[in-house]
């Protein structure tokens, strides 16, 4: 079933010896310890693991989100299409790597339209109006929200349901046409119907985008991901094709986690 073309494609992200520590002074304690992995292009990679295993920390290292918190120290190298991400400016990096959070967080003071193009607007990137209209329409169509909100584009998004808001947030990330989309447990605050809509959406989106998904829901990882990482205590225990990992885990800890013995 695996498309041979994707097999040859270069990895979109290469993580090399990544360490993340939440305490500047305590050098021995890592939230993410020595993780190296290649994230495949145009695939969904799921990061699984019990709470506190470092999966969110790993994800947030990928777009240097940690810079917001001066206590967090990141070591190691991450390459996006062979470019060291520490050499990119914030805006360059985050145009190429979009992020969606656990709870939907559209900007409450902005309309739906403004939310989608918020990245352009807030960064002062000038565009013509029809160009902007196009981006809004395309992004909202990509997340299957266009038909639901096209008559209310200039209203604030607070009448939207949680699932719609989360799709709006995905649209906001897509507006930049990124290479990679990071999702940090995007469905954990949503009901099952909204969750399955987002899952369908992600499967559709992987045609054009590489997706990295943090989830504590094993079934979700099994349903939609092509590759899976299993992390435990900051360590990358196992990384491989989702099918292989779920049917035949090579590490005992992975097996126990998948069997529900802990986590």
């Amino acid at each position, binding site marked *: 079933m695996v498309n041979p073309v994707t097999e040859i494609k270069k990895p979109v992200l290469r993580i090399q010896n990544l360490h993340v520590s939440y305490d500047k002074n305590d050098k021995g304690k890592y939230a993410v310890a020595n993780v190296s992995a290649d994230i495949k292009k145009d695939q969904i990679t799921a990061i699984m693991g019990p709470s506190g295993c470092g999966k969110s920390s790993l994800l947030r290292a990928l777009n240097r*989100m940690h810079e917001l918190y001066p206590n967090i120290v990141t070591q190691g190298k991450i390459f996006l299409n062979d470019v060291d991400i520490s050499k990119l400016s914030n805006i360059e990096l985050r*145009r190429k790597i979009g*992020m969606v*959070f656990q709870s939907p*967080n559209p900007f*409450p*003071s902005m309309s739906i339209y403004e939310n989608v193009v918020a990245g352009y607007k*807030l*960064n002062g990137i000038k565009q013509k109006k029809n160009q902007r209209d196009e981006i809004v329409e395309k992004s909202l169509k990509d997340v299957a929200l266009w038909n639901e909100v096209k008559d209310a584009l200039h209203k604030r998004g607070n009448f939207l349901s949680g699932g719609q808001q989360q799709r709006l947030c995905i649209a*906001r990330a897509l507006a930049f046409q990124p290479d990679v989309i990071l999702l940090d447990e995007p469905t954990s605050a949503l009901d099952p119907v909204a969750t399955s809509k987002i899952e369908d959406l992600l499967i559709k989106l992987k045609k054009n985008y590489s997706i990295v998904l943090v989830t504590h829901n094993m079934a979700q990882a099994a349903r939609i991901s092509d590759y899976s990482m299993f992390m435990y205590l900051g360590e990358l225990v196992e990384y491989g094709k989702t099918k292989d990992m779920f049917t035949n885990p090579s590490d005992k800890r992975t097996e126990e986690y998948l069997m529900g013995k802990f986590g």
Partner: protein
Amino acid sequence: MEDQKVIVDKLSSKSKDARRKASNGIFHGLVILFSLITITPIILIILNLVEKGYRQINLHFFTQIAPDSWDAMQAISQGKLIPGGILNGITGTFMMVGMASIIAIPLGIMIGIFLYENGNKRYANFIRDITDILQGAPSIVLGLIAYLWVVKYITHGFSALAGAVSLAIMMLPLIIRPTEETFKMIPNTIKEAGVALGVPYHKIILKVMMPTGLSGLMTGILLALSRVIGETAPLMLTALGSQYVSFDITKPASAIPLLIWNFYNDPNLVNLIWSSSLSLVAMVLALNLISKRIASKRK
């Protein structure tokens, strides 16, 4: 088990039920009584002001400057209304409160943001304590300070600027704390959404956080305004008062509360205190109502 059953029986017995209803009724009555006691003075104040002041309120009252004592005496002896109004007070109040806002609002919001960003650092806690102390400082002391700084060294005489500075110092803590509280209430994920789009820090504050918390900021600002608009003591030591409409910030200026004080001290003008007070109370009430309206909008 037996014991529990007994208790349940006792609780549900009829006499207990009646007693509970009675005590509930008494408590209910007390709550209503006390709230009536609380609002009665407020209503009486407003009624008194209206009763004694409404006769003087007309267009002239807002478009003419304060009369001098002689004219007022003649008008009274002829049984007419006292001529003139409080225009010099209104312009002075607007000018000084306006200048105080220009000084205090940006500064207060910036300090509020600083406190929000630096949470529990020792320096932020220090600033927070100082802010609380400033909020409790008697207003006449702030007037003295403005006298010392501005009247003595900058304008070399009583001036509107000095009045504005004393009001600005009063406004600062009233803006700082609500700003900090408002920003704290905005979920951190909103800020992170901005960071994830590569937005620079100052733009996240200005274009994401401030619009999101706008109603909270406005509430703080309006309450601060309504608080200082009626301040008298610091203005006596700084702006002094003036008989004319003056927009020169280096010259003395009047204000509505100062006029009330002047009217009170002049037997011929003393009748004007009611209508002046009524106008002042109306302005403060309006500001309060607007800020309530804005605050309820955010929910």
